[in-house]
């Protein structure tokens, strides 16, 4: 049930640089010099940021973000 922490994954092929995730979950993404998003570090989402991560996933216009948990 508790398992490993969730991991935020940004699909480079889908991200078009809308930067919605940067506004919703700034602690979880880096924006590169072209404006594309990448998960910070290895993408691990601390439990206190889980809600923000989910929000970023649900608002990405390109469906480029996903949250990987043990179950997936």
């Amino acid at each position, binding site marked *: 049930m508790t398992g490993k922490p969730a991991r935020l994954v940004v699909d480079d092929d889908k991200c078009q640089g809308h930067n919605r995730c940067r506004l919703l979950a700034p602690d979880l993404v880096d924006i590169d010099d*072209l404006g594309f998003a990448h998960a910070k570090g290895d993408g691990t989402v601390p439990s206190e940021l889980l809600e923000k991560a989910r929000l970023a996933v649900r*608002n990405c216009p390109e469906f480029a973000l996903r949250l990987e948990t043990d179950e997936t």
Partner: protein
Amino acid sequence: MTGRPPVSDWATDFDHTDPRWTENPYAIMAELRGRCPIAHSERYGGLHAPMRYADVREIAYDTDHFSSKRVVIRENPPNVPLPSPPITSDPPHHKPSRMLLLPAFTPQKIDRLIPDARRICNELLDELQGRSEADAAIDYAQHIPVKVIAKMLGIPEAEGDRFREWIHVFIEDTIVDDGTSADRLVATAREMDDFFGRYAEQRRRDPKDDLISFLLAAQHDGAPLTERHFYGALRLLLIAGIDTTWSAIGASLLHLATYHQDRDRLVAEPALMPTAVEEFLRAYAPVTMARRVKEDTEVSGCPMKAGDWVMLSFPAANRDPDVFPDPDTVVIDREDNRHAAFGLGIHRCIGSNLARMEITVALEEWLRRFPRFTLQPGARIAWSKGPVRGPRTVPVNLA
């Protein structure tokens, strides 16, 4: 031919320049979604107008069947090509011309413009101080993007009236043919090129920290930009950067002047602003783009012939109840909001970070100054027609 016959049936005789669409497209969108979600028309030589998010999305992603070479629906497009890369580019040419512009529009770069945007807004608001009424579109919204983009490009903001006139020719005045529209469009493009040419000459000798210098130094396939590419990109940045953002700011202010609960809530809870801005962008998305069908295809069972126009209405996608519950209600704390106001796929608005920043700053500064502003009773709102929809008048009482 200036007057066009009124639309007889929106499903089969669609025309986005019909005054009823300009006035209030949302009711027409909802009605069409219920009975014919991809409207069509013999006008403009054949036109399809999808109203559902899923169809808009499919077409935006399908660059094999839908070309961006012409992104404004015109009755009589000029024979002279007026490319504005990358918005008018298809793969494989699109990517390199987009890549060269992207570094200038990252959120990191745009954040540096926030102090200038705040100053610009406050200078405009200073002019209104002490007055009891104003026009939030004419006295405020329309000037903000002009001044910001002029600063970015490195051209004088005092020329704002001229910029707006050029844009009016490009996206409103020449979309319906009056026999001179194609010539006027080409003449206006040449006038813009001459204007930019004077600044390009100066920047070649004395480069500055602006987009003209940036484009002069830019490389495309290992070489400087061709003249056609250089001027096309500059025209795009000026045209795309002004009416769009002006419309979004104006529509947001019109909303807040009308719905006082939302106005009061934003004044009391400024942290809600980013969420509210995305909701204004969803509900009042200003921009509709066009595509041309490259080869015969079909979308959701609707056949489309090579050469037909497709109106890619992001505003319609954003009001689709299959994606956005209660889509015609503005919910300023809407949490799930995957809106398409900046387009979808490879042509995502390159200025989206800039637009979002300008809208946010403009609303914050306005509300700081006039937290209790209201729409004037009986006010008539004039909406722009064509690919960019926004209120051109928003008469308000300031206190």
